[in-house]
């Protein structure tokens, strides 16, 4: 009989061989894979106000009423649709059981941590890379930090949001269904090749 140790869950990379095309010093686009905890929150009919109040109470987060991303500490809340949001947190205890308890009977909470893969993209040419696959206006003054959008990138469904700039350079994250992550990464690699792409965990 085989002895089994306790089951320890840890983030598994969707693409273990994620690699760029040039060394860091020559790259105009930087990328990495993030491992946030994710859960969708879908308010039951007529319970939006309860969801808003409970999230405000517990996390001091304001429920976005449009395609925007609200953050407080390590937690973020992304508007996906009129009654649905994506809760994102990179640290802390297991997210989904905690959220289920906080929201109780007001919303459906579903763990999505392994459902989506999240890529972070930055660098001086990051918009040129995205423009080849996305038909949304990502201009610096239009799609400002805190904006989010559900759309397609190279015909692949994605949720895209913009973080605060880092060293005056725009930073974007894309969430994609895990089974499509390799296809999206293929697009990113091809699209970024002309600018030089580096993969760095600290991007």
């Amino acid at each position: 009989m085989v002895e089994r140790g306790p089951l320890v869950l840890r983030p598994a990379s969707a693409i273990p061989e994620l690699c760029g095309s040039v060394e860091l010093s020559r790259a105009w686009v930087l990328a990495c894979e993030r491992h946030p905890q994710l859960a969708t929150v879908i308010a039951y009919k007529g319970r939006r106000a309860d969801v808003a109040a409970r999230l405000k109470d517990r996390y001091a987060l304001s429920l976005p009423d449009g395609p925007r991303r609200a953050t407080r500490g390590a937690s973020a809340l992304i508007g996906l649709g009129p009654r649905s949001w994506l809760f994102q947190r990179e640290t802390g205890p297991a997210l989904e059981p905690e959220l289920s308890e906080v929201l109780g009977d007001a919303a459906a909470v579903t763990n999505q941590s392994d459902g989506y893969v999240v890529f972070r993209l930055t660098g001086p040419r990051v918009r040129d890379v995205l423009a080849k696959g996305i038909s949304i206006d990502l201009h610096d003054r239009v799609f400002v930090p805190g904006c989010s959008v559900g759309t397609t990138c190279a015909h692949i469904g994605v949720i895209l949001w913009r973080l605060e700039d880092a060293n005056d350079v725009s930073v974007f994250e894309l969430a994609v269904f895990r089974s499509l992550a390799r296809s999206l990464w293929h697009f990113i690699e091809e699209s970024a090749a002309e600018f030089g792409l580096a993969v760095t965990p600290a991007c």
Partner: protein
Amino acid sequence: MRIPCPYCGSRDLSEFVYHGDAAPKRPDPAAENASELFYTYVYLRENPAGPLRELWYHASGCRSWLIVTRDTRTHDIAGAVLAMESAS
């Protein structure tokens, strides 16, 4: 063609799935003449030249059903509302 989604804003047609006339309502399957009512509901459609209220699904955006008022002659769009917030 672009569709003004009330949640997402103006978006390309490719993000949407077309369903058709928003008017037909699913009949009562327990009604005496249910098969006749369902025949009408499933197959019979007006084909108006002019403004039509239609159901569109924003599949690649907010995943919501919309009611879009579109002129079938010109593709002019007079407005769009969330189906969940529309009375009919």
